[in-house]
């Protein structure tokens, strides 16, 4: 691969960008985002994908859930961007999805949260191509593994490390398929969901299953959800990135609780947090960390982890980049593919 590297980034403030620069280290000593100013900015995953798909010299990053074959995901330090690799701690770039709520939480809202953190809920999360989290574990302040990203699965660590990357997730391509398979997967969730990962390279499907069992997905250990027969409405507002998985969760929950309506409004993390703070929403979705002020006013919980894939043109000869090289590229220190390949 040769020629000038065309760097494509997300907009300042985007959770995906925040997580990416934080983990890759595209920051200065003050932890400030130092992404090269010559980077083309797109404000959506699709914008990045279309740009990269059309430009042989481009490099960008997107939510793992949105990855398809119009672009090529490079391996980072030899690790492929898959949920398993993330769970195993091999693939370093991942961030959490957060929901937040105010003081007076309604019963329905609480029950919906219980569902999200249940075995059923987290199964859906995995089916959608994200990584499940264990809420009870985080409640105890334990970290279930040493994964690079897992530090954010706990509320406490999240609030402690507020300089941590804001996180923002992307929509999942698995949404459609997963939704249709939900009914059948209720029993044997772990096995079934593995094969439904259409966004991941196909050959990894079987591998995935085993990887998961090896790495001991948290899902199996989670409590199972019992419908409480509540009725009411839950307003969920916030991050566009969290929305796709939230929609599937809501659909499934409403199927189990026919008297509950869940309305999802997707308009950005800040808007979601603001809505939760102001009481306009029962749950605010965020793909970034809450600021200290926000965290003080709200309760929060992680509901999933999302990987971030580094992508290039499908015909690019670049297969693997080190985290350090990626950092140099996004800092604007490396501007030619020839250099990057070394």
């Amino acid at each position, binding site marked *: 691969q040769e020629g000038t590297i065309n760097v494509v980034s997300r907009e300042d403030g985007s959770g995906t960008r925040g997580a990416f620069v934080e983990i890759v280290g595209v920051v200065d000593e003050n932890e400030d985002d130092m992404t090269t100013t010559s980077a083309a900015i797109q404000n959506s995953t699709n914008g990045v994908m279309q740009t990269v798909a059309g430009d042989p010299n481009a490099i960008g990053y997107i939510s793992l859930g949105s990855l398809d074959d119009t672009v090529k995901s490079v391996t980072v330090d030899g690790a492929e961007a898959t949920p398993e690799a993330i769970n195993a701690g091999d693939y370093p770039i991942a961030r959490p999805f957060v929901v937040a709520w105010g003081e007076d939480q309604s019963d329905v809202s609480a029950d919906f949260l219980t569902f999200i953190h249940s075995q059923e809920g987290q199964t859906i999360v995995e089916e959608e191509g994200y990584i499940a989290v264990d809420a009870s574990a985080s409640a105890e302040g334990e970290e279930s593994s040493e994964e690079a990203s897992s530090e954010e699965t706990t509320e406490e660590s999240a609030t402690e490390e507020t300089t941590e990357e804001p996180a923002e997730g992307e929509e999942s391509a698995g949404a459609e398929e997963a939704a249709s398979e939900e009914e059948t997967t209720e029993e044997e969730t772990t096995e079934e969901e593995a094969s439904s990962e259409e966004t991941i390279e196909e050959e990894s499907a079987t591998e995935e299953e085993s990887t998961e069992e090896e790495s001991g997905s948290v899902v199996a250990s989670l409590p199972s959800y019992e419908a409480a027969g509540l009725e009411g409405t839950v307003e969920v507002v916030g991050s566009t990135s969290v929305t*796709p998985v939230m929609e599937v969760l809501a659909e499934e929950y409403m199927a189990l609780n026919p008297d509950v309506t869940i*309305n999802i409004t997707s308009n950005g993390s800040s808007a979601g947090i603001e809505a939760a703070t102001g009481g306009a929403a029962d749950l605010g979705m965020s793909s970034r960390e809450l600021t200290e002020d926000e965290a003080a006013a709200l309760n929060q919980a992680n509901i999933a982890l999302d990987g971030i894939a580094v992508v290039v043109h499908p015909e690019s000869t670049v297969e693997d980049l080190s985290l350090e090289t990626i950092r140099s590229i996004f800092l604007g220190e490396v501007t030619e593919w020839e250099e990057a390949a070394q």
Partner: protein
Amino acid sequence: MTKKISFIKILVWAAGLFTLGMLLFIVGYIFYNGLPHLSASMFEWDYTTDNVSMMPSIISTLIIIGASLLIAGPIGIFTGFYLVEYADQKSKFLPIIRLATDTLAAVPSIVYGLFGMLLFVYQFEWGYSHFAGILTVTIMILPIIISSTEEALRSVNDSLRMGSYGLGAGRLRTIFTVVLPVAMPGILSGVILAIGRIVGESAAFIYTLGSSSSMISSLGDSGRTLAVHMYMLSQEGLHVDESYAVASILILIVLFINGLSNLIGNRLGSGGK
């Protein structure tokens, strides 16, 4: 000189054909990418992540069009009445109204969006809702309706007004029974323009209407119009095909509305002349 003739002709034709060609190209591109992906499931009543149905957004779009026209229509037409039939054409109030409507017409939709968000969503605490979206676009289309009404009223021959006054009819009766019917086609064409503006709008809605994909159950709900639906589908790169399908539907709707307006215009026009 003969050379120059053909030069201008060529230039003018080239520009005209470029414009039309560009349009055909865009429309063709969208149909090519969108029509094959249309499916019956995209018109199911409820949106699910599986069918990404555009039904809720079609309904929302229709409701927003209907409601905003219901508000902006009378206000705009009445404003036109005032401007043309009542106001002293030399009064100082007139240029102020004109300045206001001209400015309203020029305000970018993103500014409308922020305004609607600051006023309706936060100040009034309505949240992202159809109310907020409707009121925002109501203000947005108001200048369109005012100016087309004004133009239509001014183009009504004064002799008709004189005929009516001469028979002892008052102002109101003259306006409603003589002037308005004649001006109707012009006013309607403004309404069509307004509908076009609503259908194509996205920036203003994202910050006021929100983007909820579920079927509307009350005007306090958030929702999305077709254009926003298309935007949302394309955003994360998961439903790009479907978003082109929605775009195709959008264009078909716009074509349908334009056709309808021509039809109505011809009807009323032939009756009015």
